[in-house]
């Protein structure tokens, strides 16, 4: 095939390029700007090289919040992805119950994030909250403002409640898209339900599951609002995840340089891990 090359076509890309520049590159460059310079206000900047990056990478507090973040996100993925898939598999495929289920499932996604935090904050209160009081009534000591385990339990439960729906909806859409002929062929071939799941449903859901894992990874890795409302990062700093740490550095301490370096490292970690998930989950495709 003959392709004609015409460099004037670049002009067509220009508007998009300008838009991306304004909403992504320019703000990002501001952060880069802060991360390699020192400022004492009055718009005076002094070159500081990689100092801030070195400081952040050797910062114990950063290490701790990164470790907490990785454990939290890992647990979230381990719980929400299988649970979402299981719920989607149990949902009806047709009939009047489909819309009822979909609306019920979608409800948590419509609640504003800080409201989710407040809801669970009140619900988990050990003296008046339904959940907190209930658990204590069972004889298990529960107080999320004092015990790290209670706090983690509540934070994870809240995130599962809030976001499993997204996984369910994605998986459900994927399941509905599988043509009937596959199920019919499986019946004719004498496949057991497990084989239908393993060889038809799971492979056909690969793409939506990849999207679900990526979205849940990115969102849970950046979690801020719900946790800050629920626990404020405590007790102590046991639920202080990366974004909470970052905000405290940047706004609390006004350490703009280290906070900017932190932001860039944070961004690079998300970028790298997203790439890793995508590559791992899609590697079969390349063959």
């Amino acid at each position, binding site marked *: 095939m003959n392709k004609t090359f015409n460099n004037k076509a670049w002009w067509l890309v220009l508007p998009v390029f300008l838009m991306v520049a304004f909403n992504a590159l320019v703000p990002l460059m501001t952060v880069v700007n802060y991360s390699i310079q020192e400022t004492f206000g009055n718009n005076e900047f002094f070159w500081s090289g990689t100092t801030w990056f070195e400081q952040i990478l050797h910062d114990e507090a950063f290490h701790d919040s990164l470790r907490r973040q990785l454990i939290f996100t890992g647990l979230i993925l381990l719980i929400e992805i299988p649970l979402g898939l299981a719920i989607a598999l149990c949902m009806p495929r047709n009939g009047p119950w489909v819309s009822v289920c979909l609306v019920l499932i979608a409800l948590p996604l419509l609640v504003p994030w800080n409201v989710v935090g407040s809801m669970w904050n009140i619900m988990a209160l050990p003296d008046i909250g339904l959940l907190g009081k209930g658990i204590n009534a069972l004889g298990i000591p529960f107080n999320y403002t004092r015990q790290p385990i209670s706090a983690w339990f509540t934070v994870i439960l809240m995130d599962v409640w809030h976001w499993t729906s997204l996984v369910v909806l994605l998986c459900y859409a994927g399941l509905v898209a599988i043509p009937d002929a*596959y199920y019919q*062929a499986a*019946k*004719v071939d*004498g496949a057991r339900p497990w084989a239908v799941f393993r*060889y*038809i449903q799971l*492979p056909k859901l690969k793409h939506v599951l990849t999207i679900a894992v990526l979205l849940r990874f990115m969102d849970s890795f950046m979690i801020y609002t719900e946790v800050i409302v629920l626990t404020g990062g405590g007790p102590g700093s046991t639920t202080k995840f990366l974004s909470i740490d970052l905000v405290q550095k940047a706004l609390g301490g006004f350490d703009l340089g280290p906070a900017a370096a932190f932001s860039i490292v944070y961004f690079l970690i998300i970028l790298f891990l997203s790439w890793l998930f995508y590559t791992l989950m899609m590697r*079969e495709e390349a063959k």
Partner: protein
Amino acid sequence: MAEIRIENLRHSYSANPQGEEDYALKRLSITWQDGGAYALLGPSGCGKTTLLNLISGLLTPTEGRILFDGRDVSHSSPEERNIAQVFQFPVIYDTMTVFDNLAFPLRNRGVPESEIKTRVAEIADMLELTKTLHKRASGLTADGKQKISLGRGLVRPDVNVIMFDEPLTVIDPHLKWQLRSKLKELHLRTKRTMIYVTHDQTEALTFADQVVVMNLGEVVQAGTPVELFERPQHTFVGHFIGSPGMNVLPCEVRGGKALFAGIPVEAANIQAASGRGRAEIGVRPEFVSIAKSGIAAEVVRVADAGRYRIVEARSHGHTIKLLLKEGDEVPQSSTFLAFDPAHTQVYEDGWIAGAHR
């Protein structure tokens, strides 16, 4: 392998069917011999896929029975019926190799691995899949995938019947022909009962020993390709089979004669005509010829179809098509037509006069 007997089968997709129009498949009884090759032919939406899914057990009939070798299987699952089915679009298990795909129906039934190996090798050889046996099935072309579907149907040695639901729809035309002859060859080799659903008359007529023509949820005619061609039981069959289809002309039956526009026309089954109902004569374009006298007609259009020409003529307000061999002289405008009496039939209310209904 089994003889398949269908008794008074009816099916409706609605839970409580009210009238006849609620039935996708109207009352049907038919028997298919063990080892035969059958085709279900009909336009889209005529109920052929419904019938197929009833036989395979993917649907449960509203009324009637299906018997395999005299055993009632109307309410058995596809697995219990031990049938194989190939679908319109290739169904393959993406994550498996071609080998695993072919082995899947056997593994599900707990066949020992050594036997699976020989069986799969044999089928792969028949379908020319040996070279790709250890490749991932998802990487194959559409016809390769459909071959896998065929293979999964053939791999079990003991299936009662193999059913094909328009299996060549997604295949390129030049490969269609190959796969069709492959199927015919496989039928001759394995002697399984095969039922082939299609809306393509060429596929049906080349594949099957007996073709069942369906329309609007009913069987219109079941017969050999020759029977369907020479003695269509219904004008629908005449239209649907043959290219171009049969000429159907209104006529009057009076005094033991069929009259087309007042001109007496000899017909093979005129004795059977009751004289009641809407009478028509049917004659295929192959059996219409140019004559010195007879039915006056005007030549309207001539189309070249290679070895013969299709001549379209108008006579007394009706279109009559006829075929002329290559080299035969095409008459100029006004001419006369003659119908071959042995292949001209009288139809009453659409059905051939004297039909057992």
